[in-house]
């Protein structure tokens, strides 16, 4: 029973189309040059990763503690792993965009730094899940961690922003938000759609894998 299906195919085709459009058919931003097109990768991955995948981890966990339904635990587990993938894209494309525009690979920019710490929390979440054998205990512990992590996010944003305001760094050039022409705006919206599709496809695939693993492990443990 393959874990991926037509949805992944559609998502990949959509993504390829939007990326091709971004690279060859969307005019580059005058001030920043071609490198500015990393924007169409960086921003959608960040939005999908931070505001779609991460909340699912905390919500899935909280709902599991309430309803004790294994599917909710699998949802939290799967969205954590897929979130890690999307945030990895953000953390790789960030410096690749920073170097040509601001001259340094890592600018300790508030949002990117928060994303980095969130990435570590998700990694910790995944490692914690790997460390606990008993399925029920693993679900409970990761739910607790997921909820606490969601409480932590505002504190990290606060600390990072306070750090920036207390030590303003001279912004060399290029305002934060480049002015978007109509075509650029369209490409960006298409990118959002493609990335969201990809997220759903990956999440579904990972959920099917989790269900398969749980079934096999139950059989092997003699819990027929």
């Amino acid at each position, binding site marked *: 029973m393959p874990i991926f299906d037509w949805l992944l195919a559609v998502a990949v085709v959509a993504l390829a189309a939007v990326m091709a459009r971004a690279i060859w058919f969307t005019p580059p931003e005058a001030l920043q040059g071609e490198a500015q097109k990393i924007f169409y990768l960086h921003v959608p991955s960040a939005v999908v990763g931070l505001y779609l995948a991460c909340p699912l981890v905390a919500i899935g966990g909280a709902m599991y503690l309430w309803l004790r339904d294994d599917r909710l635990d699998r949802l939290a587990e799967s969205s954590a792993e897929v979130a890690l993938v999307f945030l990895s894209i953000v953390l790789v494309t960030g410096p690749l965009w920073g170097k040509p525009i601001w001259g340094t690979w890592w600018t300790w920019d508030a949002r990117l730094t928060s994303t980095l*710490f969130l990435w570590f929390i998700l990694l910790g979440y995944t490692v914690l899940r790997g460390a606990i054998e008993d399925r029920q205990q693993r679900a*409970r512990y990761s739910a607790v961690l997921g909820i*606490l992590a969601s*409480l932590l996010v505002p504190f990290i944003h606060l600390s990072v922003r306070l750090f920036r305001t207390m030590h303003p760094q001279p912004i060399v050039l290029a305002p934060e938000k480049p002015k978007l022409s109509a075509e650029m705006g369209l490409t960006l919206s298409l990118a959002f759609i493609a990335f969201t599709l990809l997220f759903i496809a990956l999440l579904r695939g990972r959920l099917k894998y989790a269900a398969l693993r749980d079934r096999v492990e139950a059989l092997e443990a003699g819990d027929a």
Partner: protein
Amino acid sequence: MSELQPPGTMAVALMIARKDLAIEYRTRSAFFSSLVFSLLGVSIFYMVWDPTAVRPIDMAPGVLWTIFAFAGMLGLHRAFGLELQTRAMDGLLLAPVPREAIFLGKALSNLVYVSAVLAVTIPAVVLFYNLEFGSGLLILGGIGILAAVGLVTVGTLFSSMTVHTRFAELLLPMLALPFFIPVVVPAAQASAKLLVGAELRTVMPWIQVLVAFDLMFGVACVLAFPFTIED
């Protein structure tokens, strides 16, 4: 023969903390190792910079709070570790006490331990980085207590979830360190300003972050702890 009158949450927490500290006093294991760790850390850190290029007073806050976080974290597993060898945890769970009391007891015993680490690290930094004594030192102690409470609430909860796993020593730092950011960063930034004579008023934003963190995670960890108990 002796009818029972189940003790209250705080009474139980004090009992458990007192028992832990009695054991700690007998074995002195966690305390001495962290004392040595702090002193070593503070002195090694002095040698990794060129003191003429970077003034010790600028290094001091960063060193203090980094060493404090790691030394504090090293001893956190000790609290629940005591209950593991002979499954004494079952004994606690069987007693007619609320689960939260067990967490508070362990958090209290960890708080005493972490405060002891602080009481060693601050003088060590003052000595080795020859900071002049001043009122700043008192406030530094206050910030230390706030940071200790933050570190202990989260650290104790994560210790209870990882102490029985195979690589507990690695897992706790990995889970807990992201949660120490809003504790160590404000503490370091505030003490950096205070050490160069800034008013308390200017560092209030950082203090507020610390206080908010302690309140938020103090409540959240106490509520979350019962869910980590096998039921």
